[in-house]
């Protein structure tokens, strides 16, 4: 038997060669830990989809009203970058959407985390908040748009308040779960090392809850990104959602498609940035 050849890093990255973990595969099927990224196929499927777009564009197989050609889309995109859309630079359409999401998540976290902590640590707070939280949780944020418009009109406050609501209940539940996950022996250890109640909260319960809080932030970012686009579809003159809605009214399919692609890419980027931050900021996640 020949010595095991060390696979080149590219092959491992593509999932074509096994890495140190997947190499230990013991059964042909059922060992989920031994399934590698299969990234080669991810690259393949993206390339095939783009090629299909190129081919259909070149052969004029699809009416541009339904789906634009790749060339036309690119031209429109460069034009959008250069001139903006309806007197607003493209980067501002993106920026305002991202700004709304970040504001909503930050306010949601600032209010939700203390409430979640209180619910995790006090029976009274839990009793008070539980019916409200459990009632609000299954309501999709979009169902609140009409009420929010009645309260705040259609200005910036309305959108940020909607996103605040969307992230609030996610953050409450995440913080509460984080607090509840603390192992009692850690709390006992801290007290027997002389920590006060406040020190236990600050130095044990808070860091112990951070992984759950961060997972909550990630979820809130995702939900808010989806919600902001939908909210902009309903009522806004700036933002990616409003851009594709207005473009639809003028039958500009290419702009609609560009908007959709940008929404997808930005959502993906947000998730990747959050995962990266999680690795940097909370390396102890799952190690307790």
């Amino acid at each position, binding site marked *: 038997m020949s010595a095991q050849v060390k696979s080149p890093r590219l092959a491992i990255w593509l999932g074509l060669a096994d890495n140190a973990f997947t190499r230990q595969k013991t059964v042909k099927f059922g060992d989920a830990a031994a399934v590698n990224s299969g990234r080669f196929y991810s690259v393949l499927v993206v390339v095939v989809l783009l090629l299909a777009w190129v081919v259909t564009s070149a052969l004029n197989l699809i009416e541009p009203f339904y789906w634009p050609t790749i060339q036309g889309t690119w031209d429109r995109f460069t034009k959008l970058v250069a001139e903006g859309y309806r007197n607003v630079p493209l980067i501002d359409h993106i920026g305002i959407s991202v700004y709304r999401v970040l504001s909503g998540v930050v306010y949601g976290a600032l209010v939700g985390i203390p409430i979640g902590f209180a619910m995790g640590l006090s029976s009274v707070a839990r009793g008070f908040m539980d019916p409200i939280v459990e009632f609000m949780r299954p309501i999709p944020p979009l169902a609140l748009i009409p009420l929010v418009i009645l309260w705040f009109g259609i200005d910036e406050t309305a959108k940020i308040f909607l996103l605040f609501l969307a992230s609030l209940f996610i953050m409450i539940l995440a913080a509460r779960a984080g607090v509840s996950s603390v192992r009692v022996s850690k709390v*006992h250890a801290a*007290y027997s090392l002389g920590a006060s109640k406040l020190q236990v909260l600050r130095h044990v319960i808070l860091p112990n809850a951070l992984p759950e809080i961060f997972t909550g932030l990630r979820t809130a970012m995702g939900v808010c990104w989806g919600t902001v686009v939908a909210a902009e579809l309903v009522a806004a003159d700036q933002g990616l959602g409003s851009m594709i809605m207005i473009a639809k009214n003028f039958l500009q399919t290419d702009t609609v498609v560009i908007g959709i692609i940008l929404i997808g890419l930005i959502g993906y980027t947000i998730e990747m940035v959050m995962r990266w931050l999680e690795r940097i900021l909370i390396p102890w996640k799952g190690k307790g």
Partner: protein
Amino acid sequence: MTMAAAARAATPPPAERDEPISGEQPMSGIEIDSISMEFTLPDGGVVRALSDVSLGIATGEMVSVLGPSGCGKTTLLNIVGGFLSPTRGAVRLNGHTVKGPAAERGVVFQQGALFEWLTVEQNIGFGPRMAGRPKAEIRDKVHDLLGTVGLQGFAEKPVYQLSGGMQQRVALARCLANDPDVILMDEPLGALDALTREKMQGLVLRLWKETGKTILLITHSVEEALYLGQRLIVMAPRPGRIMKEFRLPFPERGLTMPPREVKASSDFVATREEVLSMIWSMEEEIMGENGSSEVSS
């Protein structure tokens, strides 16, 4: 009366008394004064986890507690630690009543009680940091303790990167950093493999000798209880109570002799068998009860 009861349970027969310190027991050391602990179950039933337990531990003494599961030994430690208040009775340390957890009574838990978001150094320095000690003082203390427990060069490591044995070394050092009067150990070596466990027993013995701390050790392992107990308290379940007390020469012996030699000596083996058969018969009693109820139902 309660004081007398404690003294009766705690003080060995005069012939065996070899430490002058046990004479002044009521004021110095731990005094567990006829404590009972009852838990009420959701269905209204009452579990008597501890029934009228009295035990005195002199300053500097190392006492191990052994017993079948359900005998209340962890409840006992939780009461001494101040995490539970007994239904009746009281625990006193150096004459004052224990009312809650405090830095004077350090606890070493089985595992998973380290703070995984902190480094080895930060874990060990946790107590002094909470007490607001100066940074330089904490650094020096941590540095010394790293040497004491054999973790030089690991100061900056996150604790989750250490092996189980090394994590327990951190737990011991973290406890010592606070310079407690008493160290309570709740199965500290229970999750370790046999070899690491033996090594760590040696470390506990050495720390006891070097620091002169009072140590109360809860364990499942008969061998460990014999090796690390000047006195061994055997507890019985239903209700949890002290069944028998042994006075043992093995910790002192362990300070001068290699561990295998201590554990292979004829009196160690004889005591081990005696304790084992005692625990066996208790376990069988429990199993017998369950068995008969299963048959009858």
